[in-house]
């Protein structure tokens, strides 16, 4: 495996929320992310999947320090970002960028395309003169497939796909090493999605970019990722290399999530056995005891309600947090194989 650019260890992000009324309700802690660990190799894509509210966006934003972590480490190129002050963190902002889900609200409607893309250049002092800045903006606009006469226009004059291209140009402006792509294609039509995905892949090859690709679309994640993590209710339940995960999923949640994805193939759709999960995701304000998935899990037993399963390596970097999987491995006599724990 290649050198690790980003290592997240036992990351926690908590929010204080008021119960009922914004003023009089009791203050409670919402554990949006509660002990998540993973690593991303340089030049690779880590896909983070899960349903809405599972904490995947919060992970991405906490890595970029848009939220303050409540605990854990975010090691980027050898430095623990979680321990830095705002001032110390500033130089890292140039090296880490973000592409947002909604191309309609993530661009300032009162700035021209040139101003939007040029802003990171000014902020990080990357263009000494106005001419240099204009030149670089022109280059970036061309790179993402827009024309240079688009530079003076405003975001409302563009379609969703074009706006997403502007967002990508802005993220690339400061020549980052790492980009958090938070559902970058979810709001686009399928024929446009493929254009944007190809663009992201092209830039990864060209600039050696590392991506954290957050999405609820499992087929897009399979296409673009090298390694994938599945989140449920603030914790990572399974992570593995992409082919291993999609070919040999072990966690019951991963299995049901995958089987719920509709395939664009009527024959397969007819014959395939789907696991239909019952009920909804529990509230993260009031998570179940033990394994967070046990309330919807078919295989849940007594132990699942008592202890939280640990993310354990089951071989070749495939990690699962499930008591049942652990038990099966023990009875199969595989206890001798090295298994180390990541979280405390």
């Amino acid at each position: 495996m290649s050198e690790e650019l980003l290592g997240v260890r036992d990351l926690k992000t908590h929010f204080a929320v008021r119960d009922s009324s914004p003023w009089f309700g009791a203050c409670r802690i919402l554990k949006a992310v509660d002990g998540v660990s993973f690593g991303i190799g340089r030049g690779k894509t880590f896909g983070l999947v899960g349903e809405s509210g599972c904490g995947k966006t919060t992970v991405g934003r906490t890595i970029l320090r848009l939220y303050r972590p409540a605990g854990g480490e975010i090691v980027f190129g050898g430095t623990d970002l979680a321990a830095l002050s705002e001032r110390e963190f500033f130089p890292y902002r140039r090296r880490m960028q973000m592409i947002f889900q909604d191309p309609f609200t993530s661009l300032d409607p009162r700035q021209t395309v040139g101003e939007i893309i040029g802003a990171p250049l000014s902020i990080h002092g990357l263009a000494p003169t106005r001419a240099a800045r204009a030149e670089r903006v022109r280059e970036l606009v061309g790179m993402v497939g827009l024309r240079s006469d688009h530079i003076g226009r405003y975001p409302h004059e563009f379609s969703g796909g074009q706006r997403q291209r502007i967002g990508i140009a802005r993220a690339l402006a400061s020549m980052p090493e790492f980009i958090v792509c938070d559902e970058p294609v979810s709001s686009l039509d399928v024929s446009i999605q493929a254009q944007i995905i190809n663009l992201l892949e092209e830039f990864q090859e060209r600039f050696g970019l590392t991506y954290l690709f957050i999405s609820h679309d499992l087929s897009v994640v399979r296409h673009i990722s090298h390694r994938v993590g599945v989140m449920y209710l603030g914790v990572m339940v399974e992570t593995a290399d992409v082919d291993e995960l999609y070919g040999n999923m072990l966690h019951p949640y991963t299995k049901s999530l995958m089987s719920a994805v509709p395939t664009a193939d009527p024959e397969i759709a007819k014959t395939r056995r789907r696991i239909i999960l019952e009920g909804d995701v529990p509230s993260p304000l009031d998570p179940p005891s033990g394994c967070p998935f046990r309330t919807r899990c078919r295989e849940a037993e007594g132990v699942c309600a008592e202890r939280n399963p640990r993310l354990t390596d089951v071989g070749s970097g495939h990690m699962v947090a499930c008591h049942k999987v652990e038990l099966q491995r023990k009875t199969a006599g595989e206890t001798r194989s090295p298994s180390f724990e990541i979280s405390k």
Partner: protein
Amino acid sequence: MNGASLLDIKNLRTSFRMSDGVVQAVRGVSLSVRRGEFLGIVGESGCGKSVTMLSVMGLLPENAAMKADVLAFDGKDLLRASPREKRSIRGDEIGMIFQDPMTSLDPLYTIGNQLMEPLRIHAKMSAREAARRAAEMLEMVGISSPASRLKQYPHEFSGGMRQRVMIAIAMSCNPKLLIADEPTTALDVTIQAQILELMKEMKEKSGTAVALITHDLGVIASVCSRVAVMYGGLIVEEGECGAIFYDPLHPYTKGLLASISGMGDGKRKKLAPIPGSPPDLMNPPDGCPFTARCAYAMKICAAASPRFTNIGGHSAACWLLRERRAA
């Protein structure tokens, strides 16, 4: 083919007056929904799929203008129907489910109230009967302890639960046709699977025809028996589900299928996107709307609209399929 058709649309045109021009959202759609079938209408945003069905329902806003040669539902001429007659069809014989379960229920009324309304109006049930039927419906869509749930308000339900309530409302009067406009787009995949399963089950039980509008080819493949593909305010291809997926005729359908990343193989092959973006329907192009993005476009494509060519019960509007006349 017309013998079994429940809804007949011929040459439907719907346009919207805007401050800066007229948007021709639907530009001559002919479609029929057969009794008891599961029809999928697929297309990208702005292709006119929702507007087609809103026109049928008579739910267009003030600034819309609609014309059609035929618009008939179950032998009744909807073009000549009075508002009163339309009202009696809506909600009774045609049920509708909308995309956003968060905004399609009234937050000020209880679930029970909203479920009982169509029963009281259309089925003329007494309050007690309606309450009993409403509880039954909730149970049928898989909501536990329905009697107490009836007294709750929409905000006490999750997204998936609200969509179940919407289905219960739409199905409560045993409609002959259920129009579902992107019913699962706002939901997570595991909840989407629940709702699709429920819709299939309800259709099987009641024999209701379903017209499912979606942009998701995966959803189409898992539930629909027949598919209509729309682009630029027109239907470009129509056929059995298998034919559309395994033997697409129109270059747009082919492009759409090539641009999705399947779950099937894990090969990191390059996606083949369709270049460009859909046409501006304020100034719709002459001829085939797909010409500007089509790899096979010919001179004639931009000049004249292709008519449907039927190949074994599966048809598409494309010049490539017309037999060339000898010069």
